[in-house]
């Protein structure tokens, strides 16, 4: 008996330590990123600036440092961390939901749909608001189409859902190509291409108003449902025999994930790789239990995209698109992990 209780205590200690790391690392990353950039701000100054804005005591003059940190870096850092966390957590949730570790948040066609919406927005007006609203609208529409194709009388089997997602995705990808084809090759086409590759450049607080709350709601919803995802990861009949409403729970997870992914695409284009790979790194660290895996994926995803975006904005004078970096930096790293562990973590 005593041995058992000792062991559980040990596990609790490790859990607490782990949780601390999960919260601390993103916080440290956040702070370092504030200082980092073409214009280096020393940590003391950065900290003071942040504090005066958090707890406004006396009004400070607007220095260059202050506007760099508060107006340029802070919104961009918030965006990078939230999108990274959101894509990673919805990837982890989808991999659990589909009982398939090769699935990413893009599987139901939401990214292709949102990408098309954004491209359309750039084509017809170029205003950020149009781009965002159209991206979110078409991203959601894509998932609704996927739902309608896959729906059957007795509910939707998973393979139908995946195939329908592939169909919807292919359709919207073709529409994106169509828009590129008709777009003005001098100005509009490069804008669309560059945008679709993902970028956080020029993020301002106004831009974040629609997307950020959506991502936050989606993340919180998935985190709240994280034990239910364990049940959903069993095959359909087993999950049903555990007394849960499989169809309803499944669509709630899909809705939360759609919210996150379409908002993410609306804010910064299609950022690949994160939703697929971060959950695997999470499983390597903490195992497959979604109760721990989802928060862990959140934390790793936030830090990962933050690091990537820091590279994007500091490595060269011109911004490097995110999708290029997530894979160029991530692929060798993941290859190394895969070789080292033999893939035995799921």
């Amino acid at each position, binding site marked *: 008996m005593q041995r058992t209780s000792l062991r559980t205590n040990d596990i609790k200690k490790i859990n607490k330590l782990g949780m601390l790391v999960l919260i601390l690392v993103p916080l440290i990353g956040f702070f370092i990123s504030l200082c980092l950039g073409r214009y280096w701000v020393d940590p003391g100054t950065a900290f003071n600036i942040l504090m005066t804005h958090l707890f406004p005591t006396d009004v400070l003059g607007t220095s260059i440092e202050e506007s760099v940190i508060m107006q340029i870096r802070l919104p961009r850092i918030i965006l990078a961390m939230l999108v990274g966390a959101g894509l990673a957590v919805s990837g982890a949730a989808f991999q*659990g939901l589909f*009982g*398939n*570790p090769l699935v990413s948040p893009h599987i139901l066609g939401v990214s292709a749909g949102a990408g098309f919406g954004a491209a359309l927005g750039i084509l017809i007006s170029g205003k950020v608001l149009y781009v965002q609203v159209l991206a979110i609208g078409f991203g959601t529409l894509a998932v609704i189409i996927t739902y309608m194709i896959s729906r059957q009388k007795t509910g939707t089997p998973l393979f139908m859902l995946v195939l329908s997602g592939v169909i919807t995705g292919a359709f919207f990808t073709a529409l994106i190509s169509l828009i590129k084809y008709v777009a003005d090759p001098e100005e509009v086409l490069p804008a669309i291409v560059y945008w679709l590759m993902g970028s956080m450049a020029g993020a301002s607080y106004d831009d974040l108003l629609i997307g950020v709350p959506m991502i936050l709601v989606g993340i919180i919803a998935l985190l*709240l*449902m*994280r*034990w*239910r995802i*364990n*049940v959903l*990861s*069993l*095959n359909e*009949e*087993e999950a*049903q*025999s*555990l*007394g*849960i*409403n499989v169809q309803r*729970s499944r669509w*709630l997870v899909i809705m939360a994930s759609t919210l996150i992914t379409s908002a993410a695409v609306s804010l910064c284009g299609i950022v690949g790789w994160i939703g697929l790979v971060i959950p695997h790194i999470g*499983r390597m660290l903490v*195992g*497959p*239990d979604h*109760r721990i895996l989802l928060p862990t994926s959140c934390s790793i995803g936030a830090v990962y995209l933050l690091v990537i975006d820091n590279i994007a904005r500091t490595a060269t004078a011109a911004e490097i698109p995110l999708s290029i970096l997530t894979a160029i930096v991530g692929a060798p790293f993941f290859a190394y992990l895969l070789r080292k562990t033999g893939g035995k973590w*799921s």
Partner: protein
Amino acid sequence: MRLEVKNGEFAYENGKILFDKVCFAVEKGEILTILGPNGVGKTTLLKCTTSLLRWKKGITLIDHRPLEELKTSDVWKKIGYVPQNRGTVFSYTVLDMVLLGRAPYLSLLAMPGKRDVKIARDALETVGAAYLEEKRCSEISGGEMQMVLIARALASEPQTLILDEPESHLDFKNQLLILEVLQKIAREKEISCIINTHFPTHALQISDKTLMLGKDRRHVFGPTSKVITEDNLKKYFDVNVKIVPFDNEGTIMKTVVPLAS
């Protein structure tokens, strides 16, 4: 709890009837075995009984009340289902796997708490697999995994356990262990068991009642000793057998020896 099926009938979408007019009942603490050759619909019958599939005609009664009248989650608090073991994609720890059995009691956003963990541990204890608690499901043997699945079903504190060929792919010793655990569950915990099996000898050893399904919608239900006879096995399985009683330290046991088909 008394579980009864009245006039159960299942048909494929093309209208072909798999079985019909099937009636059986299990009382508290009884063991019912279902025997029959491949393809006569044993698994389908179990799924219809639990509402995982729909009866074409007929009805399942729980304590004389139609199952459809109960809330889905309430049905699964009363019935524990142990599917054929097909493995899982994610190798959860054994304790996490058994904890999933608490799902009927936990709402969409709820997490299992201390009490749920205790019930899960007790369930593992009952099947004699407490030592596996921290292992991953990918690291344990087929026989151990079957025990874990039974424990998961027990964690929902059911009054009836329904098992689909629990001992099918197991070795000699593990088959015996499963049978012993099922007997213990029925006798000590008074949980009734409905078991699909391919082994008439196992049925003779542990069950009170037997339902035998055959081709052409034939079926027979009754006390095991009346149903598992040389005649019936010839009729339903097309196998000539001898049922041989023998004395095992004072208890008379029976075994089924196939002769020729």
